[in-house]
């Protein structure tokens, strides 16, 4: 089980790093094997930062990330190498993961140098072919070619195959569908579904609610680095509790249901400010409101999220930076 416990990340920004930007605050959730959890948020919500922290590409500032009980932050050398056997990532732009002057085989060769040094040529070929087969690619179709000779969907599937050649049990999939065309994106989504059935735990990071709705068992909605709502996908989409989730769902263009009569266009641009006029379900449970961010002592008393119905948690509607709720 991959567990995030009150994870936070602060970036130094501005000239000489004089300012701080709290990109992720107080995020806790689990990812089990054989499950897809989608992490949905708009740009700047911290969703990619969370993925990068899990992959150890960024250091964690607060809280801990553990995989099967082992804290990820302390891993070094052989232990870190072993960690990457189990946890792998695939990113948005498939071509940026490839070196354009090498053929795509290079991706696999790097992996072989690090993890499969004692594997013979024939056995390696077989292993490579088997992993390509899991993502529905023919070796002859893609190997010995340069990245520009392949389509985005092919390279993306190739990268997934590469990530799964190890004993991968958790995959961080960061916007892996966004760059693909409509006719191929559904194939990659279905592939994730197949891998899930084989026991892979997938963290599906996206800004597209319809993709999250299609593929995931559980959904987390992120806003400005905080989880505002999480729970089974059917409950989050079917019975959204947080005003932000409701606003997102109302804005998603659907194919068989048009947006209602439009109001003032100017008002729509400032719709964000009006999010918080409804009663706050969080305060019905915790009247005092959430603890101030970072105060560990208060954290035990006031959790960031409260459970409203089985498995369905919601946070305070208040903005952490603005005044009281």
């Amino acid at each position, binding site marked *: 089980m991959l567990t995030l416990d009150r994870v936070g990340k602060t970036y130094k920004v501005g000239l000489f790093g004089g300012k701080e930007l709290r990109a992720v605050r107080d995020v806790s959730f689990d990812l089990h094997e054989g499950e897809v959890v989608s992490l949905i948020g*708009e*740009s700047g919500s911290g969703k990619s930062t969370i993925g990068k922290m899990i992959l150890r590409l960024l250091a964690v500032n607060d809280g801990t990330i553990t995989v099967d009980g082992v804290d990820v932050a302390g891993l070094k050398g052989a232990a870190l190498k072993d960690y990457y056997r189990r946890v792998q990532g695939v990113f948005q732009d498939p071509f940026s993961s490839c070196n354009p002057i090498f053929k795509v085989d290079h991706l696999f060769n790097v992996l072989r140098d690090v993890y499969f040094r004692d594997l013979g040529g024939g056995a390696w070929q077989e292993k490579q072919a088997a992993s390509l087969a899991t993502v529905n690619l023919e070796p002859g179709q893609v190997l010995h070619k340069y990245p520009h000779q392949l*389509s985005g*969907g092919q390279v993306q599937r190739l990268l997934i195959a590469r990530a799964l050649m190890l004993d991968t049990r958790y995959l961080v999939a960061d916007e892996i569908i966004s760059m693909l*065309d*409509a*006719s*191929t*994106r*559904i*194939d990659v*989504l*279905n592939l994730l*579904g197949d891998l899930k059935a084989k026991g892979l735990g997938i963290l599906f990071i996206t*800004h597209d*609610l*319809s*993709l999250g*709705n*299609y593929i995931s068992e559980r959904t987390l909605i992120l806003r400005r680095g905080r989880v505002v709502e999480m729970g089974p996908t*059917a409950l989050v*989409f*079917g019975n959204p509790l947080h005003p932000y989730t409701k*606003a*997102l*769902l109302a*804005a*998603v*263009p*659907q*194919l*068989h*249901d*048009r*947006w209602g009569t*439009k109001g003032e*266009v*100017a*008002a*729509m*641009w*400032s*719709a*964000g400010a009006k999010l918080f006029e409804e009663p706050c379900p969080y305060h019905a449970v915790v009247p005092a409101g959430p603890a101030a961010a970072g105060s560990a002592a208060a954290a035990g008393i006031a959790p960031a999220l409260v459970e409203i119905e089985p498995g369905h948690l919601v946070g305070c509607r208040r903005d952490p930076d603005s005044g009281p709720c």
Partner: protein
Amino acid sequence: MSLQVTDLRVYYRTLAGDVKALDGVSFEVADGEIMGLAGESGCGKSTLGNSLVRIDGRMKHVGGRVVLDGVELPISDSDAMDEFRFNSISIVPQYAMSAMNPTRKIGTMVADLVEARHRRFADLREELERRLVLVGLTSEVLDRYPIELSGGMKQRMVMVISTLLNPSLLIADEITSALDVTSQKAVAQTLVEFRDRAFVDSMIVVTHDVSILYQIADTLTVMYAGKLAEKAPTDTMMQVPLHPYTRLLISSLPEVGVRYEEERLQGIPGSPPSLLNPPAGCRFRDRCPLAFEKCVEEPPFVEVSPGHAVACWKAT
């Protein structure tokens, strides 16, 4: 009749030969119509939008006519097009973030722009400020540099600038793609508002996102590999799509209001043909579940019912 395009052919020059990005495209856009143009990347939809505004050095106008409000546009002659650009045909580019001059204050830049079209900025300023208020901006932004505005603000600013001279036709190229869902909705509805207020007569909205088009477009046009596959009123297209590509495309889109559980959607196997040497006949043939012998001949783009045209032998 606002815009008539007849058999338009625009190729890209490359070392390997001509890439036939637009290969005989004919359609009409009526007054007040918002035409949604959808298709996969590389199908020629952006080329179509761009070639109506500016054919750059890489592109070659091979044939076809474009008539806007009864006047033929000299699309292959960039200098002659100057007279029409911004006045009667205008574009909101894909990257609004980088569409404004970073070294000029926005107000100064707009003044330069309208004066280049022999209009006095002072005459237009009042109208400009009214339109800024309409999209939730204040006239204060005119004294700022583009870098001081957020992405959503820049997008709105560019939309207002592009339509300032009330063009007859506006091309909006993927303008919602880089935005968050809430801004996407606001941009889309702003486009409709501009049309309703007659800031522009008609629009071509180019995007890969069919669901945005379903929300705002009056008609939908689907392109495939440099040709038009189907054009129909939006509701007709959703209810009775005739081209197999349109059908497969629409059925492959996941939606928010649906529970999927174990149900799986199907993609379209294969990939579009190269436009360097596109195959003769129907270009969707290799991926089409309905393909038969006749598909080696090119299907004509013909009207099957009022306003509904399709290029498929099986549909006609």
